[in-house]
Structures are given as C-alpha cells and as structure tokens.
C-alpha cells in the first residue's frame, strides 16, 4: 500500500529542508527523502558564506529575500545557526581590478540595489588589517557574513520535522515516475504518492529530472576547502578575490577556512571525492601572498563537498516546463547556501499559489530550451 503526502521532496540539503519547513509552516504535509543524512554533502560542508556580494543580477532578488530571513534566522528555525554579519569584502589586488568593480556597483545602483559599496584602501585596511599592502580597495557587502552550514541545515531539518514535515534520512529514492496526476516514489520498500514533487537533489538532481522526461544539464562537482589550526584573531569579514580563486574566513575560535572553488575529483555514485593538492597549492599560494600573517599556519584538514553545477552557474528554481506538478530547486553551482532559506519560501509560495512575489527571471528551466529534448 502506498503512503501519501501533499508534496514529495527529493534531497535533504538546505534547499530541500527549507522548502519542507516553509511548506509545513503553511499547513501542507511534505515528505522529504534524503539518501544519506541532511547536510551530508554540499549543504553541510560548504564554506558557510552568507554572501550577497558579487552575485549574478538574476539571483539578487532571491538573495535579498533570503537575507531578510537570515537576519531573523532564530525566529525561523529556533537556532541562530552561528550566523554573523561581519560583512564580506571583495578585495581588488590591483588598480586594474578596481575599474570593473566600480562599473558593477554603479550598474547595481542604477537597478536600485544598494547592498554593494566601493571601499578605498583605508577602509579595506580597517576591515581587513592583515591584507597585503598592495591591495588598493574593493567592494563590501556589510550585511553579509557567514554561518555554520551543518548546524544550519540540521536546524532547518529539525524545525521542519517539528512542524510536521515527514523527514526520511537514509532513504534513497530508487525510482521516480508519474502515474496520472501523481508522482510515485519507490523508497526503501515503500511507495509514496503526491501530486507535487520538488527536485532538490543537488548533484544528483539530473537523475531525478531525467526519470521524469526533463533532463537538466547539471553536473556534479567537488569544490575543495582547507581549514587551519587556530591563529590569533586578525580578520572578521569574509574576504574574496576577483582575479584568483579565493574565499577566506576566520572563525570565532581562530581557525581559518580557505576556499574559493578549486575542484577536486568527484565520484557521486560512491559519495566520494578525491582532493587535488596541485590546486590546493594554488589556494595556499594565494593566501601566502595576500595574508603574509598566515604563512606559518598549520593546515589541519581539507575536504570537498559534492555539489551540482549548471553550465551558466545559475540555479534552476521554479516549475518544470514539461511535467505538471514538478518543481526544480537545484543547480546552485556552489553558491546556494545563502539562497536556501529564501528559495524554500519561494518554492512554498509557488506550490501553494502558483506565483511568488520574488522575481525568478533568468533562473527558470525555460532558459534551456533543449533541456527536455524539446525542439
């Protein structure tokens, strides 16, 4: 005998859990299926940046919506998620890098977005005293910051469950199909049915979509991170670079996380990644140059999380173009953590009412006219 829910959600990352929470809050009965445990992959092991800075314009409305939720995150999930608002700084390494930054900030102003602000060398030095003397300025996003990703994803999972969402961990979805109006999932000997399905399966989202006749070009990737032993406190905001791949964050306990998107090898079928130390060498070299204070720091560990990446590095959020009742919330391309709380709210609205106040232009599946094998 099959079991039923109002909405089936595949994937227990921040996105699936946030959607489950917002749906349950709105009075729906969602059932979420996670093959491992909530936050096992990208959502739980990312750098934790709650970043508005340097986002594609298409993502900005969603990012702003999410930031409103982040600023009251404890009201939403009963946990502060380790969220801080020490800001994020895009560091220019040369005068040449400043010009496009100015143009970008001016363009955002013209569109009515004020969250990015140019800073000069003095302000950069005030925000990040240890940064190399040669950096002439940059861009700051003062409301942005960082949170603890595993704690955040877990808090969403817990709160969703408390509100009545049926959360199933260790539950690998074996097959997905559509029978009449209903989606039918086979999971660990059980069959589940609902008229709505949310594909929040991250790196594995392509497999879910393909079974429903709408393949999406999402590729598994494994962005790598390193963390150091504790060093004396020297920087509060998250620092990122434009020219080279680097994101840099010191935690309250003194340890420093070094990321930026260098990729390891990924084996999604095995839940496995292999670190590429030649690329981590580049990260280390960049830190060595930008933050001389870090040169003697001890690297304690490096890792990679398995994430789904789209060809244009933008997510897919919204209804399927081909399959009624199917919604995609995937392909966040290594920058979906900040968006998670907002994307969940948007999905719940879309599912309940068919519309959302948050513009999703440029984030829909329809931008890939060939995705479903159409035309």
């Amino acid at each position, binding site marked *: 005998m099959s079991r039923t829910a109002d909405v089936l959600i595949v994937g227990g990352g921040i996105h699936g859990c946030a959607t489950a929470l917002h749906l349950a809050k709105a009075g729906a009965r969602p059932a979420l299926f996670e093959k491992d445990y909530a936050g096992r992959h990208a959502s739980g092991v990312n750098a934790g940046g709650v970043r508005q800075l340097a986002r594609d314009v298409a993502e900005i409305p969603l990012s702003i919506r999410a930031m409103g939720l982040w600023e009251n995150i404890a009201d939403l999930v009963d946990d502060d998620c380790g969220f801080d608002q020490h800001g994020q700084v895009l560091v220019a390494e040369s005068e040449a890098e400043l010009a496009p930054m100015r143009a970008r900030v001016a363009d955002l102003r013209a569109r009515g977005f004020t969250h990015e602000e140019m800073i000069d060398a003095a302000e950069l030095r005030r925000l990040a005293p240890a940064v190399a003397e040669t950096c002439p300025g940059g861009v700051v996003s003062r409301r942005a910051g960082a949170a*603890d990703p*595993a*704690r955040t994803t877990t808090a969403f999972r817990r709160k969703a469950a408390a509100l009545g969402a049926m959360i199933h961990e260790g539950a690998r979805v074996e097959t997905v199909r559509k029978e009449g109006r209903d989606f039918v999932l086979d999971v660990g000997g059980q069959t589940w049915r609902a008229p709505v399905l949310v594909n929040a399966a991250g790196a594995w989202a392509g497999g879910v979509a393909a079974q429903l006749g709408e393949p999406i070009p999402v590729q598994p990737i494994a962005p790598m991170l390193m963390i150091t032993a504790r060093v004396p406190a020297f920087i509060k905001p998250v620092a990122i670079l434009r020219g080279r791949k680097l994101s840099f964050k010191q935690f309250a306990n003194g340890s420093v996380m070094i990321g930026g998107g260098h990729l390891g090898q990924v084996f999604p079928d095995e839940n496995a990644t292999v670190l590429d*130390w030649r690329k981590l060498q580049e990260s*280390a070299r960049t830190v060595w140059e930008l933050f001389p204070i870090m040169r*003697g720091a001890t*690297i*304690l560990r490096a890792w990679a999380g398995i994430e789904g990446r789209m060809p244009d590095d933008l997510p897919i959020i919204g209804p399927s173009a081909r399959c009624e009742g199917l919604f995609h919330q995937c392909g966040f391309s290594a920058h979906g953590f900040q968006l998670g709380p907002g994307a969940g709210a948007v999905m719940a609205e879309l599912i309940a009412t068919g519309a959302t106040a948050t513009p999703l232009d440029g984030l829909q599946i329809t931008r890939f006219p060939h995705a479903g094998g159409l035309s």
Partner: protein
Amino acid sequence: MTAPAFASSHDLVVVGAGPAGLAAATLAAQAGLGTLLLDENASPGGQIYRAVTTTPLPDRALLGPEFAQGGALVEAFARSGAAYVAGATVWHLDRDLTLGVSAAGRAALIKARRVILATGALERPFPIPGWTLPGVMTIGAAQTLLKASGMIPQGRVALAGSGPLLWLYAAQLKRAGGRLAAILDTTPRENWRAAWRHMPDFLRSPYAFKGLKLTREARAGTRVIANVTALEAFGEGRLAGLRYAAGGKRGELSLDALLLHQGVVPNVNLAMAAGVAHRWDEAQACFVPTLDAGGQSSVQGVSIAGDGAGIGGAEAAAERGRLAAVAVVKALKPEASTPDAAAIAAALAKAMRGRAFLDALFRPAPAFRVPARDEVIVCRCEEVSAGDIRASVAIGATGPNQLKAYRRAGMGPCQGRMCGLTVTELMAQARGKMAQEIGYYRLRSPVKPVTLDEIASIQPDPAAIAAVVRE
C-alpha cells in the same frame, strides 16, 4: 642506504619503517623494484624497534632481546638498495596513488605504481576521569621517551591498564632503575573464560614463555592491584592521585605520574583517507582494513602490512610486509624471483599463534572503552565530553561525522586518533547499534598537520619535484 631523493615517480613507495615496512621495502628492492621507504621517525625501527640504531641507553639489553632483532631488519634493508627518507611525513594518499609528503619543511607530491602502508599501531584511547591532567600520559609515550632519550618518570609512578606493553614497559623501567608505586591491572576477570579455549595455541607460541618471564619480572617487589574496575585520576591543574575500585574495594594513591595503556589498535588514518574500506573487528574492538591474503586493499594498488592491517605483533608484521611485497613484485615484475609466498604465509601463521589468546585476555572492559560519566572528556582537542556526545545523539546525530558538525569532535590536530574509537563505541551504545553500523570519522588529508608554507611551496611541475632533493 642510498642518497634519498623525492623522485617524481617510483615503482613502490612504502610508508613506515617498522618491521613491516622494512621487510617489505627490503624484499621489493632485492627483486629490483625502484623502492622508496618514507618514515616519519628520525631513524628506522618503527615503534617496536624505535631508535634501534641510535638509542642513548648504554645497555640496549635492558630493552629486551627482541629489541636487538630490529637491528637485523635494519641491516638487511640498508643493503637492499631501497631509497630511504627519514623525518618524512606522508599526509596524503589517493586512489590515483599520489602521495603528499613533507620533509625538512618542504612538501612534494609523488606518484607510485604501488603503495604499501605500514603505518603500524596507535594506543587505544583510555578515557577515564582526569586522563587529560598534566602528569597523566600513555605507557607508549613513556616507552618512546625511554627508548629514544633514556628518560624514566620520576616520583611516585603508577601504571594502570592491561596488555603486553604494560608488562614489558614495567620490566624495562625496572631494569633502567625506575621505581613503581603500583601496577593497577584492569584485565577483566571474565576475560579468562573467553581466553581459555585459546590457551593450547598460546602455550605453543613464543609469547607464553616470554610473557610469563616478563610478568614475573615486572611483578617482583611491585604492588600489583588486580581486577581493577574503575579508575579516576584527580588533582587541581595537575595529577595529585588516583582513585580506583578493585574486587569490590575502593582505594586511593597519591601520585606524581600515572601511565595508562589498554592495548594498541591499527593506525588507520592514512588508509581511510585514501578510501580503503574498513570493517569493525569485534575481537580486537577496532576498525581494520579489508584485505586479501597478499595485503591488497579495496583501493587498487594500495596494500597494507603490519599492525595497521590488524594487530599481530612485530614478527607477524615483518611476514605481512614480505607477503605484500611479493604480491607487488609479482604484479610489476613477474620475471623477478621472489621468496615462496606459501613459506612466508606459514611463517606468518606461526607468528600469529597465541594472538587469539592475547586478544581475548586483554580485550579492554567496556567500562574503560566507553565512559559512563558524562563529564569525562572524549575529544581532547576540542574538549568534547561524553555527555556532549550523548546530547548530540539525542538531537539526531547518527554517527561520528554529524558529531564533527555538531560539536567539532575529531576536528582538532589529532584527527580523531585519541577519540575516534571511543566516539564510535559511545554512539553505538547510545543508539543501540553495532559499531559497524555507526562507522568511523570520515578522514581527509592532510592526515598529519602540514603548514601553509609547505603547501604553498609544492612544486607544480613534475620536473621540479624531481629536483627537490634532500640534503
């Protein structure tokens, strides 16, 4: 020994220069494979034969006749033609057989056609109340100080725990002029029932005679408290004494040093980080790699020999090293002549005789593997207590990897070496599951800390790697 260099590629890289690594590298080099032995220590010998060529102790005999056997292994290795790098920390290994190694403040990535891990054993965690106090250390650490520096602990010293190393160290300490206030034996009385059926095999093993002689020597003139069921170290800011329960009675000792030990377990960090499959071994109460008869692991090209493959002792380690090397030679250079694998396997079986008895007798009591009291620190690096872990289970942590996220347990510099097994067994107990289902920390390189300087200085070009030559 040849002048060592980090060439960019090798037929075989062996990690660890204890008996398994020495024997493996010797056999492979004799068969003509380009062999590199990387060792973290300053001189070959591993833990068991630590400082066999360099110990400052005027009379090496006080470390026992077995210690001298290490000298023969080192001599054979020195003549074999294998390259050797001392002070080399291997911090990365992956399925592509790339190794990350640091020595003398420089790091390199090197490639191997085959890898034999001979990373040996670690002491099992012994999480009692007060085990983090200054003045409390492990017997293994104390023995390292004795072998490498001739140091013995001063003042009122007690040993507590169980296992062959406890008795060996007690005897060595006496011979070196040290004094013991007491030995507290935590071997559970009921273990004798389980061990009994392995007694005939044990009696035919070399351990029987040696062990008896050693235990008699260690006990002579020393207060031995048997059937110890509870231990609590106490003191303000440093060790002042030890409270204990034994045979239904309670007692207290004033102490300056307390040395703890309850057996050794495989050092699995590098193998696990490389993706080698492991399974829970109930008899030895630890994780061991899944291996075939030649020591080949689940990762193609990575073999494991010695105590890292499951505790077997020094003689078994050397034979396992030879077996693994024979398999590698047969794969890479089938035309080379190698010793008969069956004969080595027979020697291994002989060396393993008596092991089942030791495993059963010295299997630590559950109370000493999983602290009952919530305030006992489990993860020393991040100061996570048994109570913190139980609380995490209560809010939904199902295994050690979620505990890392919830409490930072296992996230410190030791990468779980001092807490991993305790965490697995504690979570298994709290969740009513088997240790196998709970699993272990997912380990990642660098498995040993390495500086940003070293990582930043890795030469990206293979030709440049070849030029990184140690002086």
